[in-house]
């Protein structure tokens, strides 16, 4: 080895690591700024000082309720479910080496959503029971889609097509449940169709926060193994990745994140699907995309929720805004892979 090559390798690695950290910092700053904006603006404007006092637990007339009970849980929810959707989505996309293999395309989100509506409307479940039911359903759908597409290994394309079919079936379950729910008001119905943060409260934030704190680190610890899987199953296995174990752990953790988030906010359209590719575009495919995709997801949900609330004269749920963003990208992906001669 020549010393110039070694120097170049070291310099290149340090430069890429710096760039990665810088981008993460920029994303984090944008998230904090966006969160601050969502806390300050609304029907009444509160200055940053008031908000800071509320966060510290002091009583500020007016702000304590509006910010502390309405805006703060809503913003926290946006941040947390964004992370969950982003990390869960990019896990599937990376593992299956296909941007279309995101949990919101292949039926996992639909499964959690269908179970949540079934639980609330027909089985009269509440709170944590709904979350647990949604998670079990999410895992079951993941298992079904995986098993149905298994034939001498899992092919991403087959899995995506089967997942789309399952998703359509599950979405009809959700629609059916909603049509039966008589006293259901429009906002709550919309939550289960497109995802919404309306009326988010602390007791809804807590379970998904706990899920993130438990499952997030599990996933991050497997980040490097997951990036190895991009090289193909054989290459990753030959580099010492325990394929079966890694696959099992990351699927359970990612489905858990997606299902908890779906149980809390509904299936916020396309956040899981969009975050990974955006993060890949920003960060490149050199390192793990888990945290970058999580941060992108958070920012997406925060911005989309703010836009949905205040950019138009009518208030739209966050999922409508992300849906409008996501659909063109879906079309673009399909057109591009078609041009490249891919089968999907």
């Amino acid at each position, binding site marked *: *080895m*020549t010393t110039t*090559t*070694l120097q*170049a*390798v*070291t310099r*290149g*690695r340090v430069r*890429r690591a710096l760039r990665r950290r810088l981008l993460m910092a920029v994303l984090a700053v944008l998230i904090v700024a966006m969160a601050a904006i969502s806390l300050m603006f609304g029907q009444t404007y509160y200055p940053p000082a008031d908000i800071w006092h509320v966060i510290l637990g002091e009583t500020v007339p007016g702000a304590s309720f509006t910010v502390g009970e309405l805006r703060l849980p809503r913003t926290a929810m946006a941040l947390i479910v964004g992370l969950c959707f982003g990390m869960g989505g990019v896990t599937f996309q990376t593992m299956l*080496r296909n941007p279309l293999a995101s949990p919101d395309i292949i039926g996992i989100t639909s499964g959690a959503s269908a179970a949540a509506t079934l639980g609330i409307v027909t089985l009269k479940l509440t709170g944590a029971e709904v979350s647990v039911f949604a998670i079990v359903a999410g895992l079951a759908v993941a298992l079904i889609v995986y098993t149905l597409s298994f034939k*001498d290994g899992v092919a991403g394309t087959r899995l995506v097509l089967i997942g789309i079919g399952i998703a359509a079936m599950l979405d009809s379950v959700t629609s059916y449940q909603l049509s039966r729910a008589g006293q259901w008001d429009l906002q709550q119905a919309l939550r289960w169709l497109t995802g919404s943060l309306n009326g988010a409260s602390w007791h809804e934030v807590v379970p998904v926060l706990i899920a993130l704190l438990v499952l997030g680190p599990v996933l991050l*610890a497997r980040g*490097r193994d997951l*990036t*190895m899987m*991009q*090289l*193909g*199953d*054989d*290459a990753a*296995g*030959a*580099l*010492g*990745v*325990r394929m079966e174990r890694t696959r099992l752990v990351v699927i359970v953790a990612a489905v858990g994140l997606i299902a908890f988030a779906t149980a809390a906010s509904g299936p916020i359209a396309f956040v899981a699907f969009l975050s990974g590719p955006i993060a*890949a575009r920003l960060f*490149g*495919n*050199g*390192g793990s995309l888990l945290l970058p995709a999580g941060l992108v997801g958070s920012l997406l949900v925060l911005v989309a929720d703010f836009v949905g609330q205040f950019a138009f004269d009518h208030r739209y749920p966050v999922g409508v805004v992300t849906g409008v963003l996501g659909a063109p990208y879906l079309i673009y992906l399909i057109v591009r892979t078609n041009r490249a001669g891919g089968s999907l």
Partner: protein
Amino acid sequence: MTASHTLDVEQLTLGYKDRAVIESLDLVVPPGRITAIVGANACGKSTLLRSMSRLLAPRTGHVLLDGREVHRMPPKELARTLGLLPQSPVAPEGITVADLVSRGRHPHQRMLARWSIQDDAAVAAALDATSTADLADRAVDELSGGQRQRVWIAMALAQQTDVLLLDEPTTFLDVSHQVEVLDLLTDLNRSRGTTIVMVLHDLNLAARYADHLIALADGKLHAAGTPGEVLTEDCVRAVFGLESRIINDPTSDKPLMLPLGRHHVTA
């Protein structure tokens, strides 16, 4: 790096579902030499390599590295001694050469450990050995087929294993790049004593570059030995179902196979 490892296959039977691909195979890979495995399409060559690197569990029999069963070794420990370059690995979209080659360091890294100077040194050595240092910052997608194959080999070299298995490393390359890759592997074998086992399609290049030739037919060992011993007209007929003439290659003193088809044969 020069420690020679033994790699033995004993009574190995491999298969997918109800189909047996390899049956009761016994093999000895000579340490520190270049071994080429040849055989007709679908005769189990790739399956054998996958099993030798722990990716496919045997139905019966064993694969032994230094007397230890590879399927019972911790995957990362095995991957520090034995590497495999599969036939068609996938380069993530937009990944740079340096990042891809760096992934070869995976078995040497603990779960959350930091990147070390040894890792950098291994990557730099791999880039130099494969003449890809100039490409380090380029995206792998932009490279030509020959360059890309050199980069994949660099990734396998960064793994710093004493045994390297390669599944058809020359496929899809034009003849000059095929020779380039085989020369590179020979350099590696001579300078570091790396044991190399590769599946090759081209019989003549296999005979030229391998010290040891293994011919498989229908999942069984047909012949093993030096190219001179193995590459005979009978062997080509038995393994490929092809009539041929074997002559002495004047440039290398190795056997050279000339296929006899139904047309254009004058003598």
